[in-house]
């Protein structure tokens, strides 16, 4: 006879709360969060494209929103999310080849992803303002 149908408190395997935060783990979580942000942010991209396709009046309205400090803040965060997710994704593609799993490499790539995303985001915005 088995007790498999008797309900009881089963032990759970340890989860996030038993670990102290590490950079590699935070970058993994951030990769998922930026992915989600980009998911909903697609709405902004499509909104802007529809505005451009709708004509000058509506385009100016939408551009006005994106030019406001709030709009710029969203776009800045969106740019960073996109670059961070892209660099993290390139890291994943590198892992897919079976390389880069040594502890020091993993740690270095996590730092490169974070640092690179901040530097590239600022660089992109400097270029954008330079063009303007």
């Amino acid at each position, binding site marked *: 006879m088995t007790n498999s149908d008797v309900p009881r408190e089963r032990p759970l395997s340890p989860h996030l709360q038993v670990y102290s935060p590490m950079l590699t783990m935070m970058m993994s979580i951030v990769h*998922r969060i930026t*992915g*989600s942000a*980009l*998911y909903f942010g*697609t*709405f902004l*991209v*499509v909104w802007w*494209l*529809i505005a*451009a*396709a709708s*004509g*000058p009046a509506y*385009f*100016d309205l939408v551009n006005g929103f994106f030019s406001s400090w709030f709009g710029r803040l969203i776009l800045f965060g969106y*740019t960073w999310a*996109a670059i961070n997710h*892209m660099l993290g*994704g*390139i890291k*994943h*593609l590198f892992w*897919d080849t079976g390389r880069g799993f040594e502890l020091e490499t993993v740690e270095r790539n996590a730092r490169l992803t974070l640092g690179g995303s901040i530097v590239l985001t600022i660089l*992109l915005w400097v*270029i*954008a*303002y330079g*063009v*303007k």
Partner: protein
Amino acid sequence: MSLRTPLSKVRGLGSAKDGTEHWWHQRVTAVANIPLVLIFAFVLINSVGKPHAEVAALLGSPLVVIALLMMIGSITWHMRLGMQVIIEDYISSEGRKIAALMANTFFCAAMAVAGGFAILKLGFAS
């Protein structure tokens, strides 16, 4: 009693109901996204502060239309796959999971069609 062999039942149909396609499509679209999103970023930077006519002309030029269409297709497919994994990870109730997966597909399809339509309209207008 099924006449199918055990091998034919499991071939490519594990608990996820498909084989490596999900993982593979995520990778293919990820690789495609890199150049396509960079092109879009370049177009965006060149549109900053420009009047509508100039932006519409840039967005409507054939090469930009082709690149942006591919970008919309690739990113919406990629984000549908990604959100599917998040839903499957965090929503355990079967009913709510199916509803969320459906909503995911609807949102991504809506973004793909809306974005694609806008790009085509710009392309055919100029």
